[in-house]
């Protein structure tokens, strides 16, 4: 009894009495700054952006932020390329920052993708030619002042004063940094923190639309609440997995799952408790499925995609999917491969439901942004079929699909920002009728994106779909491929419907106009078209790249 008391009081007493020299020194953590440099550069740029907000005069902020973002992201990409060239993607890949971050092929590939997405997204964020000039100021897609009551006097004053929310750039960069860590995280704690790091800026960005601000704020609140909920579930799962394995590191848990770990006496009792492993694993996967918008965790997607400012929607739809699928792949392939007989049936179900529900509900949509939201849900299902393969080709096909999907998505949402009427973007589908007559080029570009989403050959969507289905079929999931093909057909129906509207219906007299974008948005769209065609016609280089990047470090 006295012994326990001593132990309890050790906190206050024994420490004071003990000889300080007897305490072993805590070793300095070893952090490979060079290998973490891409993330650190983006963080640095973000902090610089915050400082610009704080100290630069209002007039100089836009240019400054744009420059910092673009330079920061470009530098991060250069650093990633340098790391890959140094062989970190293959031979030299290892786990950095005291086991927190993996520097390996999938991580570098996904980080590169995310950085490029962010670069394009920065362009769409910075677009200022679409809205009519308000009181002599060019305006972007973001609220003049986020704090002003929608429709209130303060808002009008802010618009008149030419305020713009240039904070979106540092917020974007913070989100990007979080997303870069997310698929590279090699312990569950880093996974959780990075999830929060990229989610929080997204919640904020969602609330900052210039038009339809109430809807935007509602979207933000919805996203925040559901996101917080899913984070909580993820965290609970992490706790249970820790309870099971006694460690949060991916490799450590995998060892325990495989039964190859050295059983310490401390873990002898808890380890082997499959209930903890199953429930914990399920909850962590649930948290990730929420982020990839898989059914039944998809409810937030249409509302948030619709409410958020369109450039943000494009960024979210592309980058979050990349980051979350990266994390999901690493979790399932590194931590839980030993459990694949348990999780594969579940993921089968999720993939089937996601593909079918996404495609079927999309058919009834009348709003372009909601349509694209459901289409992104269906695409999450297609991606899941690749994840289920549990093979190197599964990894590389998902990586490739993510590249193909994300740039097309960015381009698609960029096109949505261009079609406008007096109330801002004209997202209702009926307003898109006859767009092919008014502006054939834009309609043709959007048709290319839609055909790519539908997976018509010679577009990126087809190559991606073929890659994941091929991986799934080789992994023995032929029924899944059949379901995928059927839902592709359903999905094709609503993409085609939009094309029909654009080309074969008479334009409405009060229809929307097509804004002439600055080179910023044009670049985003052109890049989308280029990626669609290049990945559709000559995907070999990128398939090779994804193939080489397909090995996780453990």
């Amino acid at each position: 009894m006295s012994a326990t008391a001593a132990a309890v009081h050790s906190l206050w007493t024994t420490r004071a009495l003990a000889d300080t020299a007897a305490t072993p020194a805590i070793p300095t953590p070893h952090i490979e700054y060079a290998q973490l440099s891409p993330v650190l550069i983006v963080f640095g740029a973000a902090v610089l952006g915050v400082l610009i907000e704080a100290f630069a005069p209002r007039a100089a902020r836009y240019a400054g932020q744009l420059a910092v973002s673009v330079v920061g992201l470009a530098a991060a990409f250069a650093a990633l390329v340098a790391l890959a060239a140094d062989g970190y993607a293959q031979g030299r890949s290892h786990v950095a920052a005291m086991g927190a971050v993996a520097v390996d092929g999938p991580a570098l590939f996904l980080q590169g993708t995310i950085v490029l997405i962010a670069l394009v997204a920065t362009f769409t964020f910075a677009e200022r030619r679409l809205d009519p000039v308000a009181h002599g100021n060019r305006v972007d897609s973001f609220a003049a002042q986020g704090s002003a009551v929608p429709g209130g006097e303060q808002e009008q004053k802010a618009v008149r004063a030419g305020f713009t929310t240039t904070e979106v750039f540092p917020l974007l960069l913070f989100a990007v940094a979080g997303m870069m860590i997310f698929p590279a995280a090699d312990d569950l704690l880093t996974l959780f923190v990075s999830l929060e790091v990229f989610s929080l800026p997204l919640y904020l960005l969602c609330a900052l639309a210039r038009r339809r601000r109430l809807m935007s704020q509602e979207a933000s609140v919805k996203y925040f609440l559901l996101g917080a909920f899913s984070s909580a579930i993820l965290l609970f799962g992490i706790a249970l997995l820790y309870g099971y394995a006694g460690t949060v590191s991916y490799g450590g848990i995998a060892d325990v799952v495989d039964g190859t770990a050295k059983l310490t006496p401390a873990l002898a009792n808890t380890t082997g408790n499959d209930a903890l492993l199953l429930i914990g694993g399920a909850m962590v996967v649930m948290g990730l499925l929420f982020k990839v918008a898989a059914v039944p965790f998809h409810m937030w997607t249409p509302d948030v995609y619709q409410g958020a400012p369109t450039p943000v929607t494009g960024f979210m739809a592309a980058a979050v999917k990349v980051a979350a699928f990266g994390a999901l792949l690493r979790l399932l392939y590194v931590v839980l491969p030993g459990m694949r007989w348990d999780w594969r049936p579940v993921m089968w179900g999720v993939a089937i439901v996601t593909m079918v529900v996404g495609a079927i509900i999309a058919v009834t949509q009348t709003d372009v942004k909601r349509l694209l939201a459901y289409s992104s849900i269906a695409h999450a299902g297609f991606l899941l079929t690749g994840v289920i393969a549990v093979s190197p080709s599964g990894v590389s096909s998902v990586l490739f699909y993510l590249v193909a999907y994300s740039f097309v998505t960015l381009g698609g949402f960029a096109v949505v920002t261009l079609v406008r009427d007096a109330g801002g973007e004209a997202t209702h589908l009926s307003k898109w009728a006859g767009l092919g007559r008014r502006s054939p080029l834009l309609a043709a570009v959007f048709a290319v994106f839609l055909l790519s989403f539908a997976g018509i050959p010679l577009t990126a969507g087809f190559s991606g779909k073929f890659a994941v289905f091929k991986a799934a079929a080789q992994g023995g999931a032929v029924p899944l491929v059949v379901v995928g093909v059927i839902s592709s057909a359903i999905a094709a129906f609503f993409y085609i419907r939009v094309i029909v509207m654009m080309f074969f219906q008479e334009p409405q007299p009060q229809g929307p106009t097509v804004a002439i974008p600055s080179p910023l948005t044009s670049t985003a769209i052109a890049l989308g078209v280029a990626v669609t065609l290049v990945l559709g016609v000559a995907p070999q280089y990128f398939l090779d790249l994804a193939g080489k990047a397909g090995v996780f470090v453990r």
Partner: protein
Amino acid sequence: MTTSTGEAIQFWVLGIVAVLGALGTVGMRKAVHSALCLAGTMIVLAVFYLAQGAYFLGIVQIVVYTGAVMMLFLFVVMLVGITAADSLKETIRGQRAAAVLCGIGFGILLIAGIANASLHRFTGLAQANAGGNVEGLARLVFTTYVWAFEITGALLITAAVGAMVLTHRERTERPATQREQSEARVREGRNVTPLPAPGVFARHNAVDVPGLLPDGTPSELTVNQTLRARGQVRDVGGEQERRVRKLEQRSDEYVEGVTEGEGAPEGGRDRSGDNDGANHAEGAAK
């Protein structure tokens, strides 16, 4: 080690309190009550942490969460006030019932699942706390989890930026100086003097009680604009008016009774003087 009886009793008693507190946080209609419930839950959690040997976490939970964050929150709620009520109307019929059902189902599933895990003993605490609880935590935070710890900084910056973006209103024009304000008042010709004070003499001195005009009606000017906008003005004017009227009636009866009986001992008094503010105060004092 196994759980001692004392700890078990402590757990079951406080566990109920924690869950009730959490439910109260969601269910209470007033923000202050919700916040208090949350604070209660947090304190209970802190006790749990302490009981399980996580001293640092327990103390931090009380000092930082309950003490600082929650109290700050309460201050904000009390000072700024959250009056806008959420619309509790269901947009989809039966949604709430379905949600509750699903929640309960999920909870049961989870509880059943975790209860199935054979965790009769807990281990590893002694090793974890071997070098002292704080030292053990510090060792982890500054070595193994230093990266996670560092990127939490990004989260904090984002939170700060977000708070500014969503709440800070930058002025669109230069604020008027005191001189300009007074000049404007003189030019407009109203409220040249300082505004009258709130409160009713000898009865209230609260800022939310308007001062009364001579006729007993409350004066808008006496109450802070913010309180007025929020509709938090406590109106005592109506009561005062009633009392004045009663007083007048009594004095009328009295005067009538005197003239009928013994003449008018105070006959020289002018009735119109009743409208004086002092009389109101007198009436109120009675």
